[in-house]
């Protein structure tokens, strides 16, 4: 359904790797988005904005710039043509939020930052969420027909 875009994917991956590398080399922090979002949701103790909130600000800024850039370069960065119902999106959010905290990480923390460390926890977590996600896509689109692709 979507085109195979290995070059754009590799360039994007390199940028993600560079961003995560900056967080480690400057701050000594793992760029795991679920952990950063969770950290930003902690009560403030009166100190200046936590680094987590600043990083999330960068993500939001990036989203705004990407959205604005779409009109100029005739490429889609931040948009979808799929009809993903609110109910599906809300259920997905609850599962992703709860699951990433229970499993201590998501695609970025376990995948991007964990696999290069050869962390067995991260490698197993990545294999598990990839397999669960692929099974879910199969079931919701090819067995039942309520997924975004069906």
């Amino acid at each position, binding site marked *: 359904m979507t085109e195979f875009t290995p070059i754009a994917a590799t360039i994007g991956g390199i*940028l993600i790797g560079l961003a995560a590398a900056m967080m480690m080399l*400057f701050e000594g922090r793992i760029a795991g988005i679920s952990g950063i979002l969770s950290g930003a949701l902690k009560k403030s103790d009166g100190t200046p904005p936590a680094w987590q909130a600043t990083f999330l600000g960068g993500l939001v800024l990036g989203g705004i710039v990407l959205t604005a850039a779409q009109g100029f370069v005739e490429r889609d960065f931040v948009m979808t043509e799929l009809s993903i119902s609110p109910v599906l999106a809300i259920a997905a959010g609850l599962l992703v939020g709860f699951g990433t905290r229970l499993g201590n990480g998501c*695609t970025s923390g376990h995948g991007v930052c964990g696999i290069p460390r050869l962390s067995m926890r991260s490698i197993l977590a990545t294999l598990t969420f990839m397999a669960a996600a692929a099974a879910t896509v199969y079931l919701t689109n090819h067995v039942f027909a309520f997924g975004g692709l069906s």
Partner: protein
Amino acid sequence: MIRQLLVLFSGFVFALGLGISEMTRPEKVLGFLDIFGDWDPSLAFVMGGAIVVYAGALQIVKHRNRPQFGKRFRIPTRSEITPSLIIGAAIFGIGWGLAGFCPGPGIVAAAGLVTPALFFLPSLIAGILIHRWLFD
């Protein structure tokens, strides 16, 4: 100040990477996960590119005592494989497969006012808080 700006810049570059690779588009993510259907392997190259660059950064870390600004390198040291690690990853995977958003792309797409992401993001935050109430 420069320290805060570099953290902001890291987040910004992270978002650009997600956008250019189109991980911010659910069709691209679901197409990658749809290995029994019309498979689009692009996102394996995202992970590959990111892992190679980050592995290089870890080599630099090896030769340094501390990060540029932070007190120390906070690299996770846990090694035990727990049920919660695997169950949590499985629950996350189910949610990821439902709508095609993981946390980073969900935030970036919500910033771009993509409709399903505007439902996904508050619910993502609720999921994190529910976990906190139950387990903290």
